[in-house]
């Protein structure tokens, strides 16, 4: 553990424990804060391994979505009635559908459908969440309370039924509308968390100082508060995106949004409509796995942010493993440490603990 930590950080060799080794970040504060260092600091929440893994998976999906026409070997809609329900082969990597469409190509173009609507919905929801949440947190009295009540109402109202009802009112809802509906049902959680955090920031000294200096409200919010809210905004962005992707694929699977908008849910919709279960596994397994993989990548990013915001989540496991290696049990911490430091400690325990 200790050696690993030393390799990762360029800590001086004299420093004993990994916890102290991490304090090297102090150096950064001594340098002048430039826009670049500010950006680096605010991206620190993505610096751990979990977030990085999640971002890489996400990046692959984004690349697939952008370069879909280059990656997909066939047009996703082209029918080929000579080759229907083919199992995977080199010609059709993931087989074909009941009317001979290439499933792999559908999957590749479906990534585009999922990501475009997913990001659009998430950006809308996040903007609303930040505006409502920060405003509600900064204001006091009935204005704050009523904004909070508004987000609580949206938190309680079940999202999917509302989406189904709104989407079903349109014959052919455009993409923006679907995204707006997904965003409308997804902003409340972020607003609630942001409000709580803003309320706790509002009374900190640096905000008070900015106010005493006569800084205008938008500057206080944009320059003083937002950097401190970034982790929470990022976390709510990721959470909203997860919900939006699941919501979109579910709506597509149910069939309330037009099937012409190709995404992973549409593939599953056609698969179920044409009795693909259980025999034609190549038709329905990949799309479901893609949804799950995208969800896992978002969950990983969120884990990373969580551990950045609450370092206990990371350190608890690491500390427990480190103690186990020394032959101690983390749940008996008090007892073992006492006997370890006392002279009556068993020799074996002392010998094991000694190298550290």
């Amino acid at each position, binding site marked *: 553990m200790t050696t690993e930590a030393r390799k990762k950080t360029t800590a001086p060799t004299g420093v004993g424990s990994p916890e102290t080794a991490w304090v090297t970040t102090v150096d950064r504060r001594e340098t002048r804060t430039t826009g670049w260092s500010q950006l680096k600091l605010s991206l620190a929440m993505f610096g751990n391994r979990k977030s990085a893994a999640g971002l890489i998976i996400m990046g692959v999906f984004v690349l697939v979505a952008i370069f879909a026409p280059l990656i997909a070997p066939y047009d996703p809609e082209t029918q080929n009635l000579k080759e229907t329900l083919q199992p995977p082969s080199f010609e059709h990597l993931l087989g074909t559908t009941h009317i001979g469409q290439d499933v792999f190509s559908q999957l590749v173009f479906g990534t585009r459908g999922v990501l475009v609507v997913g990001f659009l919905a998430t950006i809308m929801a996040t903007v609303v969440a930040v505006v409502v949440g920060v405003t509600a947190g900064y204001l006091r009295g009935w204005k704050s309370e009523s904004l909070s*009540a508004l987000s*609580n*109402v949206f*938190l*309680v*109202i*079940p*999202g*999917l*039924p*509302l989406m*189904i*009802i*709104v989407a*079903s*009112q349109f014959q052919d809802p455009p993409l923006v509308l679907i995204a707006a509906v997904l965003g409308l049902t997804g902003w409340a*959680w972020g607003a609630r968390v942001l409000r709580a955090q803003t309320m706790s920031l509002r009374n900190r000294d640096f905000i008070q100082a900015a106010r005493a200096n006569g800084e205008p409200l938008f500057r206080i919010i944009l320059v003083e508060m937002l950097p401190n809210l970034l982790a929470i905004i990022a976390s709510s962005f990721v959470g909203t995106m*997860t919900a939006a992707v*699941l919501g979109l694929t*579910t709506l597509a*699977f*149910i*069939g*309330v949004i037009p099937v012409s908008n190709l995404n992973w849910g549409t593939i*599953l919709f056609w698969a*179920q409509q044409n009795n693909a*279960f*259980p025999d034609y596994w190549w038709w*329905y*397994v990949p*799309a*479901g796995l893609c*949804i*799950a993989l995208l*969800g*896992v990548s*978002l*969950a990983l990013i969120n884990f990373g942010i*969580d551990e950045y915001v*609450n370092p*206990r*989540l990371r350190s*608890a*496991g*690491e*500390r*427990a*493993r480190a*103690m*186990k290696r020394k032959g101690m049990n*983390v*749940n*008996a*911490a*008090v*007892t*073992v440490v*006492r*006997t370890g430091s006392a002279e*009556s400690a068993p020799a074996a325990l002392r010998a094991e603990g000694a190298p550290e």
Partner: protein
Amino acid sequence: MSSEPTTSAAQTTASQELAAAATDPTAIDPTLIGTTAARSERRGPRIPWRFIGGRVAFYAFTLWAAITINFFIPRLMKGDAVDAYMARSQGQLTPDAEKALRILFGLDKSTPLGQQYLDYWNMLLHGNLGYSISTGMAPVGDAIGSALPWTIGLVGVATVISFVIGTLLGAVVGWRRGGKLDVFVPVTTFLGTVPYFWLGLIFIAIFSTTLGWFPAGHAYELGVDPGWNADFIGEVISHAALPVLTIVIISLGGWVLGMRNMMLTVLDEDYITVAQAKGLPNRRVLWRYAARNAVLPQVQSFALALGFIVSGTIVMEMVFSYPGIGLLLLNATSAHDYALMQGVFLVLVLAVLVANIVADIAYAFLDPRIRQTEG
């Protein structure tokens, strides 16, 4: 262990000190000394009127908002229920009939919107949810009434199972941090990101179509008479097994992760160190000290998660053709039966609100600080 005498001695002194600090040490169970529960119980139950009042106002407001949304959504759109019905009947209805229908549905265009809104409230207050086009003008309330018990049974059982297993598992995973059990976190997270309907379909494909262990759909076989007898109950259980399993597997991850994260935070608290210093057995520290405090946010997120659970079960019912309220909503959607859609949505909101109230009450029981807000 050589340390045992020392710790039990420490426990005695600690409890003696605490006992001395308490004003009336004889009246309470000595093991409870020092916990907030003991203190609040001695003061006697207080009724936190402000807390209750705030919640009641919130629920009333949410209900009003949901009803208002429900009122406006169909009216903001181009077509309405009557247009849809006219289209379905393909010109067989006279304009007079259309007008009569409009009046019946409260959609008469000559009535001002404010009056329509009041009429809508009047209808709701009389327990009238309107008439369902797709089920031959039957009252919406009847259609919902026959579907609701199935959903409540299915969702209720699945959610409770998932919450209990997930929370217990999360507590143990958090307690044995850094151990092999940590593997549960990524596994349950992966399962939590799988869409409900996909896992449901896969389960049907494996356990029903291929293996034939469970029936593939519906709440019971068509030939069986519903009634309170062993046959029927067994039938219902075997039909509910797969949907319940799917819901539990997918929703487990959230509970495990939430509980584990909260446990990690709680286990760093001083009162855990004190409890261990007193030499309390690990099991007691885990369940009575750590888990008891870590479960509070779980109860709160339980209330908030209900909206998602309801959403998830809608597709669940579609996949398993389960005759619940979700299937009703989907059928109403495809038939453009707006009255039924509105009614179902209203009932869903009501159900979530009721569950929130229950969670609030449970929270007040579990967390003495909530009860003490007045004091």
